Every structure is written in structure tokens, then in C-alpha cells.
């Protein structure tokens, strides 16, 4: 449609573009520019070429953050996506009232991550925590751990909390997909003597396969961007055992005041996330995932 006057389209788009330029556009250019410099935030900016990137590839802690992210991804693919898938299968069993369960499993998704992080820090607490006292109660004092304080358990402990939060989210996605399976198909299969398990594995699972790819990619890109849980529960510790990209980025920029180096770290990370994101867009184009809950 032709605009009623030459300037109205710009008037309508203007505020959005202005905000976006100020909040995302300019800072993006700024961050890329800063990644080639050495700057503490207050002294004079010094151009140092690719030195920051060379340093990043030799930075043991930075490399460690990616190792942790990959462990986190592997764990959450199971604890979030696979568990969510299983939950979706359970709440979509025919003829059962599951509305209340669906509402319950989704509660942690909408709560502030900080609240959950603080709450679970108490649950993991070595003294008076729910888990350790439960282990004592069932006669396994020897299983007690300083869950978040021990480098060997801290990362896994956070993965479990992440699963507790997001399994319900993936359940909602898969449930929506499974509900789109035509009822007539399920009825026909049931009349032919198919059990609920058959319906799940032979009809619902294949039909939502496209969604599992989407969910997996969502889980992966989300993992690279996660911050809240790690920052509140362990601040990346103990001894960098739960250091992930963003916690390291924040301490580099805002604690060590290495703004230029931090900018380079965020550029590297963004390239990784965008690469995964583009893959996601490409997969998405294939099948339209419409969620109608």
C-alpha cells in the first residue's frame, strides 16, 4: 500500500529504529571496534590489532569456559530436552487429566532465575540443605557433599537446577506439537490394538521429530548465553570450576577492567552463537513450528 504521505512511514518506524540503533546497533559496532584495542575504560584507547584474539585462543580459563559450556550442553540436552520430551509424552496420554501437572512443571520457567538460584543454593547447602539432610535420613552420610563448593560436583549441580527449570519449558513445546497429531490417527491406531506406548513411540515421536532439532538448538544457543544461575550460585567458582563465557566476560570487563580484551571475548562468543543460530533458522525454514497451547 502507498503511504498517505512521504514521511509517515518514517515517523512510524522511527522510534523503534532509533531505540534499536542506540541500544544494539551502535554498541555492536563499538564492541567490535573495542575488540582490537587495549583499554581499561579510563585510560587512552590503544589499537593493538588482533592481539586480543591471539590472547583469547591461548587463555586457559577462556578455553575452559567453552569446555564447561559443552559439558553443560551435554547435560542439559538430557536434563532439559530429553526429560521435557518424556514429560510431554506423559502429559499427552489420552484420557488423562493432566492440566494441573502441565501448570506445575512450568512454574520454574516463569520465576526469576535469581530466586531459583538462591533457593537451590540453600537446597545444596552442606549444612541444613535439603539434599544432604535427605542423604543422612536414608542412612548415607557418606554421600553428603559440599555440592557447590566442590569443583568436581559444582558444574553438575548447576546443570541439575537448569534441568529443573527448563524441562517444563521443553515439555510445553513438545506437548503443543503432540497435540497437533490428528485425533483420528490416534483413534484408528488404538482400534487396531496399539497401546499408549505404541502411540507415543510410533506416532507422536516421529511426528514431532522436527521439533526436537529446534529444541536442541535452542538449548545449545541458550547454554552459550547463560549467566544468572552460574553467577548467583557460584560466581564461576570454585577455582573456575563453573566458569562459563559470560561470567568470565563480566569479570574481565567489570572487575579486571580489561574492556578491550572483554570485547574480543564477546565477539568470539557471538560468532559461535550466531553460527548456531543461523543453523537454527535454516532448520526452522523446513517446518513451521506453531505453538498453540
Amino acid at each position: 500500500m502507498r503511504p498517505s504521505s512521504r514521511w509517515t512511514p518514517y515517523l512510524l518506524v522511527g522510534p523503534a529504529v532509533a531505540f534499536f540503533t542506540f541500544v544494539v546497533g551502535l554498541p555492536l559496532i563499538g564492541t567490535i571496534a573495542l575488540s582490537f584495542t587495549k583499554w581499561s575504560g579510563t585510560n587512552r584507547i590503544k589499537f593493538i590489532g588482533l592481539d586480543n584474539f591471539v590472547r583469547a585462543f591461548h587463555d586457559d580459563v577462556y578455553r575452559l569456559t567453552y569446555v564447561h559450556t559443552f559439558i553443560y550442553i551435554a547435560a542439559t540436552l538430557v536434563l532439559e530436552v530429553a526429560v521435557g520430551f518424556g514429560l510431554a509424552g506423559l502429559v499427552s496420554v489420552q484420557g488423562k487429566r493432566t492440566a494441573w501437572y502441565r501448570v506445575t512443571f512450568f512454574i520454574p520457567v516463569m520465576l526469576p532465575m535469581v530466586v531459583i538460584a538462591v533457593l537451590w543454593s540453600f537446597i545444596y547447602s552442606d549444612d541444613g540443605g535439603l539434599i544432604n539432610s535427605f542423604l543422612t535420613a536414608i542412612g548415607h552420610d557418606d554421600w553428603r557433599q559440599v555440592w557447590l563448593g566442590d569443583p568436581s560436583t559444582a558444574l553438575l549441580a548447576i546443570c541439575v537446577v537448569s534441568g529443573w527449570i527448563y524441562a517444563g519449558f521443553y515439555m510445553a513445546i513438545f506437548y503443543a506439537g503432540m497435540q497437533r497429531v490428528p485425533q483420528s490417527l490416534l483413534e484408528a491406531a488404538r482400534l487396531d490394538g496399539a497401546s499408549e506406548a505404541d502411540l507415543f513411540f510410533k506416532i507422536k515421536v516421529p511426528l514431532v521429530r522436527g521439533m526436537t532439532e529446534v529444541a536442541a538448538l535452542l538449548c545449545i544457543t541458550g547454554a552459550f548465553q547463560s549467566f544468572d544461575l552460574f553467577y548467583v550460585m557460584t560466581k564461576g567458582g570454585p577455582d573456575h570450576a563453573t566458569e562459563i563465557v559470560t561470567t568470565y566476560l563480566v569479570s574481565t570487563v567489570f572487575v579486571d577492567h580489561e574492556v578491550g580484551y572483554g570485547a574480543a571475548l564477546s565477539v568470539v562468543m557471538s560468532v559461535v552463537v550466531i553460527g548456531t543460530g543461523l543453523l537454527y533458522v535454516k532448520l526452522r525454514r523446513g517446518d513451521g513450528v506453531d505453538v498453540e497451547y
Partner: protein
Amino acid sequence: MTLSTDTPLVAAPGRPLQPTQQRRKAGVRASSVLFYTVMTAISLIYLIPLIWMVLSSFKTQNEIFDSPWSLPHSIDLSILGEAWQRGGLGTYVANSIMVTTASVVGILLFGSMAAFALSRLNFRLRGFFLVFLALGLLLPVQAYFVAQSTMLDRLRINDTRWALIIPYIGLGLSLAVYLLKAYIDTLPRELFESARMDGCGDLRMYFVLVFPLIRPGLATVAVFSILGAWNEFLLATLYIQSDEYKTIPVGLVAFTGKYSTDYPLLFAALSIITIPMVAIYVIFHRQVINGITEGTLR
């Protein structure tokens, strides 16, 4: 007609059940019991931590440490008032309400304006703006927050509510424009054309025609924008240092630092934040679940 496993498919009314059918019915009932038992057990994994949190705020420090699984001896609601007072939760809640309201109004207004123009009006830079705004869907916050914090610093708006409102609007716009544009795209063409024939200008068309018609789309955008701003932590913890401007997530972290040894008070503070949210969620669960899943799936 609805068919379910609870009703045998072949038994006609009045005819006695065959033995196999009786066995089948009993089996269905047993599997039903098993099903609901399993589901309730899973629910407890979600509910126990939350119930424990609320109950612990009514226990003494020693009770929390010595018997974490026990029930409180009495429910004294005054601990909630104490946590609210001593922790200054009122300030945090007020800030969250202000920041969230301003951000969401901005996202809805500017987002729907842009979505209308990008969906219905032909103009020179339309394609460019579409691609430009879509960048926001792809980029993580981490790609630009380093320079963003420097910019806010230089403009002397860091450590104010604007340091959150402005970024939240900018961050939320991409998704809002994208979803609302898809929504406006589905409206019939004739609607706009006949309005135009009647001499309706672009701005009037936006306010009178588009804005009321896309209300369901706006509701979806509102849900995830509200939750996004309300729960946002990364930028809030980096940009806000003064206690008087902290939002709930940052305020809670400050609270846990200040009263790290006073467990009942901490649990009370967590409960104060959580209980109203869960209550609102239970009422609007359909909208909330829809909004979050749609907002994340794009």
C-alpha cells in the same frame, strides 16, 4: 463423539461385560492409578523446594539447620513484614514495577507502529529496516553489552532506571516487531484499502484500525516482555549500583549478601517475591505458557 480408554469401546449399554472386558477395565483402572501416582511424584520434585522455601521462613534459624524437613511449630506471618521492612523490598518491587511498565509500554507502542509500517506501507528503506531490526533476533546481549555499558556511562545515565528501561525497550523491539508484523500480515488487504479510499491517513489507520485489531498479538508480546523485564538480571546487575534503583533480581542478590546468615529472613524474602508470581501465573497460566513458548520459538 469422544472416545477414551476409560470407556470400553464395544460394550453396548445394558449388555453384561465379557470377562475379558472386565479384566481390561480393571487393568485400565490400575494403570490409571499408576499414572497419577507417577505424575504426582514428579510434581513433588517441583513443589517440595517451593513449599520448603515458604515453610522455612516460619522456622527458627536452628530449626532450619537441625531439621530441614520438619514443619514449622507455628506460622507467624510477621516474618514476612520484617523481611519486607528490613530488606527494603518495597524499593526493589517499586523499581521493578516502574522499569517493567515503562519498558513494556515502549515495546508495545513503538513495536506495533513499526510493525504496521513494515507490514503495510511501501517505502524506500523498508527492506533495510526489516533486516536491521532482525539482527536483534540473532545477536546475544553479550555481543554488545560491553560497549553499551560504556555508552550509558558516558551519557551519565548509568545507575538510573533509564539505564534499564532504554536497553529493555531496544532489546524487546526486534521480537515484538517480528511477531506483530506477522500478525498484521494476516489481516485482510481490503480492510486497509477501503479505509484508504475513505481518506484515512497512515497515522489514523494505525490508531483506529491496527491497534485495536492486533490486541491478541499485543497480549502475547506483553506477556514475554513483562516477564523478560521483571526477571532480567545480567544488565541490571552491571548497570545499577545504588540500592534505590535496584530491581527485584539485583535487590535479592544484595539482600542475600547483607543477611547471608539470617536464614528465616532470606526465605521470607524469597517467598514474598515468589508467592504473588505463582498466584498470578496460576490464574493466567494459559497466556503465560503461550507467551513464553511463542516468544522463545520466534
